[in-house]
């Protein structure tokens, strides 16, 4: 094999072939740690809520001007994620706008509304409320996980019921599926140029934006390359028995918790980062609502966003509906000062110490890993159609 052929083979394995979920999970943990090293934990819903806040401000419903989306940490992370996932999709020739049947549009709209409510109650979607919350050693991440699992079962039962009673109509068109891959490389250059542009900006906080944007883009790229999907991780053990995604998420959470936990332990980052007043019914009920809705939506916070970048119109509907609903619920809750009443802020090392907390995270994820791995052979948890 010539060096040129080898180059093509390596190129294909990085940019065309799907990576294993475990590769995605490990790289995602690395990037989640990098994000905290840069400044703050990775999240999804804060960014899309910023965009929705602008919509309601624009139509005169909100009086207070939201942060500028180009200088808002969450917004920049989400833009990075979209860009990274789009780059991956274009390079692999997997980008295309795909218009679903009307039934799917309606499901996306309604599921998005419930996702907005769930993410308000739980102080975040599956990322901020669960994945990043556990990695930041907040007790609320575990209560949301319990809620998510229960919700996923309900969502799956709904889908089974729907399959018995409804047949989706004809799909809409698929278009723009032939974008040339070099556009992906142009976008990579554009991202780097945007990062440099911020370094000469005088706007307050501007020098933090390149990290949010570029690490966010790394996250989007990894998600799309590995098709890592937390909905899949929670749902498949009950649907087909498949455990690969769930195991990848479990390992990813452990690695991230060790990395981020040590940044807190050494005092490099504040212990209160991403420890919200959600431990209690807020994360439990919010997780349940979000879990059921994300199955119907076909994407969680992160999964919907990278599928937006792949051109799936159903997930466009989900993200728009989710963002608008979350903005309204959050606005309403804040106006009534309810956000502090959803539960208590519990930083696990305050109770268990850092050693005890790491052992709890590892034990909980190991049990989940073990159960779904066992279920892959036994199918004991699989709910039949």
């Amino acid at each position, binding site marked *: 094999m010539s060096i040129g052929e080898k180059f093509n083979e390596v190129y294909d394995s990085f940019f065309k*072939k*799907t*990576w*294993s979920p475990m*590769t995605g999970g490990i790289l995602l943990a690395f990037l989640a740690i990098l994000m905290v090293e840069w400044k703050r934990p990775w999240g999804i819903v804060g960014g899309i809520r910023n965009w929705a806040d602008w919509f309601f401000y624009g139509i005169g419903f909100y009086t207070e001007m939201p942060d500028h989306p180009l200088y808002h940490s969450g917004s920049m992370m989400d833009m990075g994620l979209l860009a990274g996932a789009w780059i991956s999709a274009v390079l692999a020739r*997997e980008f*295309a706008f*795909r*218009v*679903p*049947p009307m039934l*799917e549009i309606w499901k996306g709209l309604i599921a998005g509304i419930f996702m907005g409510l769930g993410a308000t109650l739980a102080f975040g979607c599956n990322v901020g409320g669960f994945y990043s919350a556990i990695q930041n050693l907040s007790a609320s991440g575990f209560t949301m996980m319990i809620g998510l699992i229960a919700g996923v079962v309900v969502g799956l039962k709904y*889908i*089974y019921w729907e*399959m018995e009673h409804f047949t*989706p109509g*004809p*799909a*809409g*068109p*698929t*278009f723009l*599926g032939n974008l040339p891959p070099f556009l992906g490389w142009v976008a990579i250059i554009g991202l780097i140029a945007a990062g440099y542009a911020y370094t000469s900006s005088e706007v307050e906080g501007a020098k933090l934006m390149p990290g949010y944007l570029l690490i966010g883009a790394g996250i989007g790229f990894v998600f799309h390359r590995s*098709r890592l*999907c937390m*909905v*899949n991780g929670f*749902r498949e053990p009950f*649907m*087909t*028995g*498949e455990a*690969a995604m769930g195991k990848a998420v479990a390992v990813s959470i452990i690695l991230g918790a060790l990395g981020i936990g040590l940044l807190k332990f050494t005092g490099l980052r504040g212990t209160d980062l991403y420890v919200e007043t959600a431990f209690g019914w807020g994360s439990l009920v919010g997780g349940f609502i979000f879990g059921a809705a994300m*199955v119907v939506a*076909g*994407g969680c916070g992160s999964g919907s966003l990278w*599928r937006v970048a*792949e051109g*799936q119109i*159903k*997930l466009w509907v989900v993200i728009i509906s989710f963002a608008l609903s979350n903005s309204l619920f959050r606005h309403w809750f804040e106006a009534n000062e309810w956000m502090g009443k959803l539960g208590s802020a519990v930083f696990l090392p305050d109770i268990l110490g850092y050693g005890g907390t790491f052992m709890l995270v590892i034990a909980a994820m190991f049990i989940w890993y073990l159960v779904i791995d066992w279920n*892959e052979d036994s199918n004991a948890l699989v709910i039949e*159609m």
Partner: protein
Amino acid sequence: MSDIKKAPDGITANHTLDAKGLSCPMPLLRTKKEIEKLKSGEILEVLGTDPGSRNDIPGWCSRSGHEYLGEKEDAGFIRFYVKKK
């Protein structure tokens, strides 16, 4: 991970399921339901637009015992072929 498996030329299906426009997990769920209508040894063709099906359908086949015969690219969608066990 996955090399894309091409379906053999001239393959003919006994039954076709149109799952175009549907996103995860609906193409796989509809495939699971549809295959119940086939007799053992018959071939189901699934039309889809979700790239995720490239992992989901072969993965489900290897666990459920059905034989995954491969895919064919068509104009704006993919044809997947599954032989019922």
